[in-house]
C-alpha cells in the first residue's frame, strides 16, 4: 500500500467521523423537536413525578447543555446513557442484545445474497437467452420490484400459516430463516442481474476471445478471467447492499417480530426514548459509514486501475 492510498484512507476516516458527528447533531435536535415526550402515557403522571424524572435524567437542563453532556459522554466514555422507557437498562446493553440477532440476520442475508446472486447471474449469462436464463430473469425482476413488506407478508402467510413449515416469530433459530430469505431476496436478485450483465459484457471482450483462441479450457476462462472481472460492479454494490440490509431489517424485523436493533430503533422513536434513539442512530450510521469505506477500499483492491482520488 503506497502512502497515497494510506492518506486517502486516513482522509476517509476523518470524513466518516465528521459524518457521524453531523448525524448525531441533527438527530439530537430534530428528535427533541418532535412533540411528545418519554414520560407521556394514556394515564398522566403527576407533575411532581414528571419533574423528578426529568431531573433524574437531566432533561430539565437547557437543550444545548444536554447536547454537550451527551456528546462528551459518548466520545470520552462511550456511554450512551440509560433507557428512559425500559427502566433500569442501559442503552448499550439493549443495543448489544438487538445487535446479536440483527448481525446474524444481516450477515447471513448478505452472504447468501452474494453467493446465490453471483452463481445465478453467471449461470444465466452462460445460458444466455435459453429457458433457464429467461426464468431466472423473470424471477429476479419480480423480486427486485417487490418491496420486502409484501414478500415478507406473503412468505409468512404461505410457509408459516398455510403450510406450517416454519415458525412465524423470529425469536428462535428456525424462525430466522424466513426473515433471512425475505431480506436476502432483493440484493440477491439485484446481484444476479448485475453479474449477468457484467459477465455478458466481459465475455464479449477481446481478451476472452484471445484466451479461448489460445486453447484455455472453458472452466478456466469462466472462473479465471470472466467471473473475476465481472465481479467489480458487484463489489461496488457491496456498500449500498449493506445499507439496504440495515434499513430493510427495520421492516423485516417488524414483520417477523425479530428482536433486533431495527425493531428497537422503531419503538424507541414511538416511545421518545431519547438516549435509545441516539444510541441506535449512532450505531446504524457508523455501520453504514464503515461499510461504504470498506467497499471503496475493496474496489481499489479488485481493480488497481481505479484511482481513489
Amino acid at each position, binding site marked *: 500500500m503506497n502512502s497515497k492510498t494510506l492518506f486517502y484512507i486516513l482522509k476517509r476516516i476523518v470524513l466518516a467521523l465528521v459524518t457521524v458527528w453531523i448525524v448525531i447533531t441533527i438527530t439530537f435536535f430534530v428528535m427533541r423537536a418532535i412533540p411528545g415526550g418519554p414520560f407521556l402515557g*394514556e394515564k398522566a403522571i403527576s407533575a411532581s413525578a414528571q419533574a423528578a424524572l426529568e431531573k433524574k435524567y437531566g432533561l430539565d437542563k437547557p437543550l444545548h447543555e444536554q447536547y454537550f453532556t451527551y456528546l462528551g459522554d459518548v466520545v470520552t466514555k462511550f456511554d450512551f446513557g440509560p433507557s428512559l422507557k425500559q427502566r433500569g437498562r442501559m442503552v448499550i446493553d439493549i443495543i448489544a442484545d438487538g445487535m446479536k440477532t440483527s448481525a446474524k440476520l444481516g450477515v447471513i442475508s448478505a452472504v447468501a445474497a452474494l453467493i446465490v446472486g453471483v452463481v445465478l447471474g453467471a*449461470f444465466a449469462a452462460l445460458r444466455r437467452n435459453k429457458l433457464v436464463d429467461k426464468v431466472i430473469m423473470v424471477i429476479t425482476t419480480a423480486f427486485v420490484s417487490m418491496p420486502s413488506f409484501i414478500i415478507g407478508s406473503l412468505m409468512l402467510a404461505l410457509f408459516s400459516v398455510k403450510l406450517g413449515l416454519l415458525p412465524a416469530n423470529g425469536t428462535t433459530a428456525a424462525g430466522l*430463516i424466513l426473515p433471512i430469505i425475505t431480506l436476502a431476496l432483493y440484493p440477491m436478485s439485484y446481484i444476479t442481474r448485475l453479474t449477468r450483465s457484467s459477465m455478458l459484457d466481459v465475455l464479449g471482450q477481446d481478451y476472452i476471445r484471445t484466451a479461448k483462441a489460445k486453447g484455455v479450457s472453458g472452466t478456466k476462462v469462466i472462473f479465471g478471467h470472466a467471473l473475476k472481472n465481472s465481479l467489480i460492479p458487484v463489489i461496488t454494490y457491496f456498500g449500498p447492499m449493506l445499507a439496504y440490509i440495515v434499513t430493510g431489517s427495520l421492516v423485516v424485523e417488524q414483520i417477523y417480530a425479530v428482536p433486533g436493533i431495527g425493531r428497537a430503533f422503531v419503538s424507541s422513536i414511538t416511545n421518545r426514548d431519547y438516549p435509545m434513539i441516539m444510541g441506535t442512530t449512532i450505531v446504524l450510521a457508523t455501520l453504514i459509514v464503515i461499510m461504504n469505506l470498506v467497499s471503496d477500499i475493496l474496489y481499489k483492491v479488485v481493480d488497481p486501475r481505479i484511482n481513489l482520488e
Partner: protein
Amino acid sequence: MKKIIALALALVMVFALAACGKDTKTSNVNSLAVCVGSEPDTIDPALNSAVDGATYLVHLFSGLAKWKMDDSGKFEIVPDAAKELVEGVKNEDGTVTYTYTLRDGLKWSDGKDVTAADFEFAWNRAASAELGADYGYMFEVVDGYNEISEADAEGNPVNPDAKLNVKAVDEKTLEVTLYNEVSYWDELLAFPVYFPVREDVVSNEAWATDPKTYVCNGAYTLSAWDHNSLITLKKNEHYVDNEEITMETLKFYLSDDANNQLSNFKNGEWQLIDDVPTNEISSLKTSNPDEFVVAGQIGTYYVCWNVNEDILPADLGLTGAEAEKARAEIRNATALLYDRNYIVDEIGQAGQVPASSFVAMGMTNPDGTEFYKTAGDSKDYDGYYDVSAEATTSNFDKAIEILKKYYKYDEASKKFTNFPTLTYLYNTNEGHKAIGEYLQSAMANIGITMNLENQEWNTFLQTRKNGDFSVARNGWLADYNDPICFLDMWVTASGNNDVQFGKGAHAGVKAYSLDLTKYGYDVKVENGTWAETYDVLISTIKSCTDNEKRYEMMHLAEDMLMSTGCIVPLYFYTDIYMISKTVDGFFSNPLGYKYFMYTTVK
C-alpha cells in the same frame, strides 16, 4: 458447469436442513407457552403500569391480597400474604387504621423471610415522587400521600422527607392508616404497585432487568429473560402455597404483532394469545368458537370535545354561561347522531357493548348492581341515551330538533348550512380511523363538516393533553372497581383532563350548580365555575365515608359530566384473546390480568 449446479444444490440443501432444525413445539405438559404482549418496559411492581406487566407480576409476587375466581366464575379478593383481610378501625380524626398479620413461612425467592418492613419500604418507594412511578397515585388513599405528592411550581417536592402512614410494628404486623374508609381498599392490596420489594434488592437500579438479581416472593421466579423474545418463569420452591401451583414452567413469548401471534397460535406453538388481527375476528368467531374469548373489561371508548372549542354561529350573540349551556346542548345533540350498534357490530367486531354512559360497564354499585344501569334519570333506558338499535331514528330526529334551535337548516337538502367545520383527531391506527370515518359520515349526513386528522401516538397524547384539538378520540380503562377512577380525572388540575374543564376560557364560565345539603354537607353553589362545583364534588366524594351517599354523589358527578356533552361515550371495551382448548384452570380478571398458575394441559 456441473460445479456451479452442485454449489447451488448444496446451498438449497443447507437452507432446507436449517429449516428442519430444532423443533420448538412444547410437548412437555409441564410448561405453557403464551403471549400477552411485547417486551415489557419494566417488571418492577412499583414502576409497571401495563396490563401485560401486571400479568407477569401477579405470577412473580404475592401481595397482602390476590384475585381469585371461584367455581361459579365469580371474582373475589382473598388474602394472600396476609392472614386475613381485616376491617379498618376508625380513629378520632376520621382516618381508618388497618392492622394486618402476615402468614407464617413467607419467603423471598432467595430464601430470606418476608417481613412487614418489606411492605412498608415498598409502599413508600412506590409512592415517592423520586421514583416517579406511573401508578404512584394509587397510594393517594393512604394517610401521608398528600404530603409526599405536594410539589412547588417547578414540580419539586415540598416535603422531601414525607412518608406514608404505614408502619411495620414487628416482623409480622403491618399497620396502615387511610385518610378515610375506602371501599376498594382490598382490591388495591391485590394491585401490583402494592406488592412488597426488598430494600437491598431494589437498591440496584437494574435489579428488575436480570434474573440473577430479580428477587420476588410469588408463585414463580424469573428464570430467564431473553430480551424481546422470551420470559421464562419457573415455580418458586420458597412460595408458601407452592403445592397449589400446577404449572411448572411458564413461557411468555414477547410479540406485539397480532398476525404473528395468530400464526403461532394456529400452528399450536402458543396456547394463549392476547391479541388477534381485527380483520380475522369474524372468521375466528366461527372457526374457533371454543377458543376465541370475549371477556369484559372495565373501560370506555369515547369521543371528547374540547370544552373551549367555539361551535356557536357567530350571529347568535350568546356569551358566558348562556353560551356554554347552548354548546353543551349542541354537543349532547350530536352524541345522538351516532349509531353505536353499527360501530360495535361493523367496525369493532369484538363483542364491544354500545355505551350510554362514561363510567364503564363492570363498575358496580354497593349492592352489586351495574353502576351504568342506574346512571341517568330515564326509566326507559340505561345511562344517558337510548343506544338500542330501535332508537336510532328517534335519536336522530331529536338531535335535528335541538340543532335547529341554533343553526340554519335547509329543509330541501335536510342539512345544516352554518355549522362550523370541526376536526376529529385520532392516533394513527386502522380501527380508530374506521370509527373516525363513520363519525365523519354521520356528521356530513346533516351538513356538518368534520375533517379527520391522525397523529402518531406520542404526538397525539401531547396535542390532546394541551387541548389543541376540537374533537378527539379518547379511551379510559379502570385501575380498580370504583367509579371514582372515571370521575376524578376531570377535576381542573388533573393531568388527564383532556377536555380542558376549568381551563382557559372555561375557567371563568359560571354555568354549574351544586347542592350537597341533602347529603349533610354545607355545600350549595349556584352558577359557579367548574372548579367551584365539580372539583368540590370530587373532593367531597373522596372524603365521604358513607358508602351509600358516596355512590349517590358519584352518580351526581357523572350527571354533571355528561350534561356538558363533552364526553360522548361510544362503547365499553372488551378484552379479546384466544386460549387453546387443551388448557384448563385459566382465568382472566376484570382488569385483564391473565392467571396461568393453576392451569393444566390436556
